[in-house]
């Protein structure tokens, strides 16, 4: 018998601290598998502030912890100093779309040759389930207990759509990981986002629609269903920008 599925080499042997059923773990695995395929000599990741703050414990490569939201700026610096390294930033939606909105927009506009993994669970997980810029209209959070109200809280931000309007980015795709088929599609997208960096094509970002069963107040299984039925309608999956196609 041959092994058909095993833990990626890019992950350490430490058990993660994520809640049961949290898809941060899946985002780690998909990222690690994509990097494994590159056989890169040097890989440097940038960890966010948020539930993934300990990502530096889990990825089997050099990691740098960034201040809240600053991962794309830190990744920019690292990539410019060590252009041969594969550099990625891993960020949540509070990290990327609230406090870090300026950094992601400018890194994308500059077309930095980095890969950004954007885990959108539509809530602040680590701090106890507050409303994020990505919290959907009507979705409950601890700071909008009857659901997000447009009159009071405004509209959610669609990050992939927004960044794809810039000239800088090479590749922007939104994926989800609520079932095996979509996990495989997500893997393809993340593989491509790293391959673009190897080929020096510039900024690639993959937005992964993710779950936060704990702060959504749902079972892990119901959370996946919520991504499929609700989140995917508000945040449609697909490729939002791909300059590699335009060149071809």
């Amino acid at each position, binding site marked *: 018998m041959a092994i058909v599925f095993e833990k990626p080499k890019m992950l350490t042997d430490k058990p993660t601290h994520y809640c049961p*059923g949290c898809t941060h773990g899946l985002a780690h695995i998909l990222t690690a598998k994509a990097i494994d395929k590159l056989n890169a000599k040097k890989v440097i990741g940038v960890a966010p502030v948020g539930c993934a703050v300990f990502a530096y414990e889990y990825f089997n490569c050099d990691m740098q912890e960034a201040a809240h939201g600053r991962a794309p700026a830190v990744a920019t610096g690292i990539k410019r100093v060590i252009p041969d390294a594969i550099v990625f930033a891993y960020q949540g939606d509070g990290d990327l779309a609230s406090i870090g909105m300026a950094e992601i927009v400018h890194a994308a506009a500059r077309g930095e040759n980095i890969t950004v993994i954007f885990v959108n669970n539509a809530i602040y997980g680590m701090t106890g389930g507050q409303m994020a810029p990505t919290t959907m209209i009507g979705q409950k959070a601890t700071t909008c207990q009857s659901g997000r109200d447009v009159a009071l809280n405004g509209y959610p931000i669609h990050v992939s759509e927004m960044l794809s309007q810039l000239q800088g980015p090479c590749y922007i795709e939104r994926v989800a990981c609520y079932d095996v088929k979509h996990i495989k599609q997500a893997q393809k997208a993340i593989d491509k986002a790293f391959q673009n960096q190897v080929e020096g094509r510039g900024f690639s970002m993959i937005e992964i629609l993710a779950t936060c069963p704990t702060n959504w107040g749902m079972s892990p299984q119901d959370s996946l269903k919520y991504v499929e039925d609700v989140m995917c309608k508000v945040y449609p999956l697909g490729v939002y920008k791909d300059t590699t196609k335009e060149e071809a």
Partner: protein
Amino acid sequence: MAKVSFNKAFCKSCGLCIGVCPKHIISISESEINSKGYFVAEVLEMDKCIGCAFCATMCPDCVIEVEK
């Protein structure tokens, strides 16, 4: 012939593997608890496993290794 093995110490009892198994052979143990205090996922009828690796693909904690 196919086989799945669980790194039980890492299992968090989330049950996502159960939802994707086409043969419905994964369940949460009613007796075995790991050091974190979770009842662990297990397969009782391994001969029914087809080695599709859906469970391992779905597991957020890399608990499952699949051989075929």
